[in-house]
């Protein structure tokens, strides 16, 4: 697992970095690169526009998201043909046999996000941030610059705050990933979430999920940080609106994660 951040890419462009990283760790993905099943092939199903006010007449036909979520970890479902298995090993064996590696075949990986297992199909080049949104269907992680500068896509990997756009999805296998969806619920906010509201530590709110993840990583180890410690913890984040003067006290006065 390479924790490459802005300065860690050795002056390469993001695309060059991703290509290199994909070659480096590509062997860990089952299957091959290139095509996602999401829109090109895949099983066709009927879905309704999520989160919109579209009426019944606007139900659209689209290809299914190549995603299965295993909440109880007792069923493992092939994202492409929807067959079910009892163990991850059985699913992986089936996937390798049913969808042999080759051009146009994505790889199957399992991501542990907020203590749920997501079996998703990805290309080697797909970033963790993009995969979390488009494959795990967790849109709380926002993508701002997509090149390791703004910090909006920050997630926790094994407790460390890391830019989701600079980590490949295949690199995150076997790690414990946490996103803003895992912090607290609207009726049971975490301390730092409540503190951001109390201090109005945002304006448009687009950067907030990233700030919250870095603040959470800090506060778990240091429940009462100084201003300087809080500033350092979120130094990899940009709030273009200019809410920094409220974000720092929101962190120092949260009283814990």
């Amino acid at each position, binding site marked *: 697992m390479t924790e490459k951040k802005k300065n860690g890419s050795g002056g390469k462009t993001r695309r060059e970095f991703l290509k290199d990283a994909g070659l480096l760790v590509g062997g860990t993905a089952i299957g091959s690169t290139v095509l996602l099943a999401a829109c090109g092939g895949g099983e066709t199903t009927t879905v309704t526009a999520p989160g919109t006010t579209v009426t019944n007449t606007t139900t659209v036909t*689209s290809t299914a998201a190549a995603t299965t979520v295993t909440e109880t970890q007792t069923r493992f479902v092939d994202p492409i043909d929807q067959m079910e298995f009892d163990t991850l090993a059985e699913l992986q064996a089936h996937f390798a046999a049913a969808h042999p590696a080759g051009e146009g075949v994505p790889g199957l990986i399992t991501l542990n996000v907020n203590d749920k297992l997501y079996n998703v199909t990805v290309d080697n080049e797909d970033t963790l941030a993009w995969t979390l949104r488009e494959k795990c269907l967790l849109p*709380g992680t926002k993508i701002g610059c997509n090149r390791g500068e703004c910090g909006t896509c920050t997630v926790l990997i094994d407790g460390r705050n890391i830019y989701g756009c600079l980590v490949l999805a295949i690199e995150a296998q076997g790690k414990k990933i946490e996103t803003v969806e895992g912090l607290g619920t609207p009726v049971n906010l975490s301390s730092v979430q409540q503190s951001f509201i109390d201090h109005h530590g945002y304006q448009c709110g687009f950067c907030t999920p990233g700030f919250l993840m870095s603040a959470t990583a800090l506060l778990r180890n240091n429940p009462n940080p100084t201003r300087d410690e809080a500033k350092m913890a979120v130094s990899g984040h940009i709030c273009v609106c200019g809410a920094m003067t409220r974000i720092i006290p929101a962190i120092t006065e949260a009283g814990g994660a």
Partner: protein
Amino acid sequence: MKREGFTVLGKEGQHDKQGVEVVTGTIEVADDVFLGQKLFAAQLGSKHAHCKVLSVDASEALAMPGVVEVVDYTEVPGWSEDIFYVGAPIAAVAATSQNIAMAALEKIKVEYETRPAVIDPEEAMKDQVLVGLWPTSNMDVRTDFTRDGTDPDAFLDADVDFETEIGYSNNHSNHPLEGGNCTAWWNGDSLYAWISTQNPHGEHNGFAGTFNLPRNKVRVFTHGNGAGFGSGRAATGTVAAVLARKTGKIVSFHIDRKHQFENGAKQFATKSKTRIGAMEDGTIIALDFEWTTDQGMNSRAPMTDSNVPWQHAFKIPNAHFKGTGVATNTVPRSYYR
């Protein structure tokens, strides 16, 4: 009036109505719709600041696995073979992932006929190289405005006569954290658009005009918005709609950061020369100022708009404003706010 009479003043929590959605990541932005079900678009920009596009060959890009469609400037309303700045759109790709769409851009071959370009406003004002917008000059907007007389001796009466000159201001790239994006879908001849905008009614009218649709055939959905700063309206809607119509699928165009810097509006750079005559009590009795603004490639607004605010703020006799807007072969400009 008694304080109890107010319904907002003195009451807590008026700014927090959106807070829970913001901190839990449940607030929906335009990019959050149709997750896992949409095609992804990317846009190819010009390599040259001033040129004519002779041909676009997208055959290699179309042959890539995952690439669904490519459109070029002939198919997108508002795009042209005549290019006036680096990054001006030439072609766009729809593919099954963002990475594939971006990779496909590198496979599109474009043949250019380059033309002389000028990017420095001082050079542009000499009119030796034309940016290509107008036949004889790069300076389309000249304002010479006088209010309440032009007494040449007005400054002699002033207690303080202050003069200053400031070089070209930094022209910020005033882009919001949320890149411009639009997800478009056609249901028959009706267009549905989920777009990051502060002006949904403007987008609604824009789509109707661009695609020659009656307004009841266009639905524009509003969302939580990742700020604007004057460049919130990146032109993503038309591209997404064209690709959605051609593919028959839901297409998301989220302009990447590089292309947003090349295409999204940027702050004007202005050089100013100001002379103020004031009395000891602070009254301004004479004002003479001259602005030269690099307008980049698109806007004619600043020279007329910048002549307005000072008139509302002060009542100044003997005021004179001279403004020149000069076009250059650089990124389109807009207001930073």
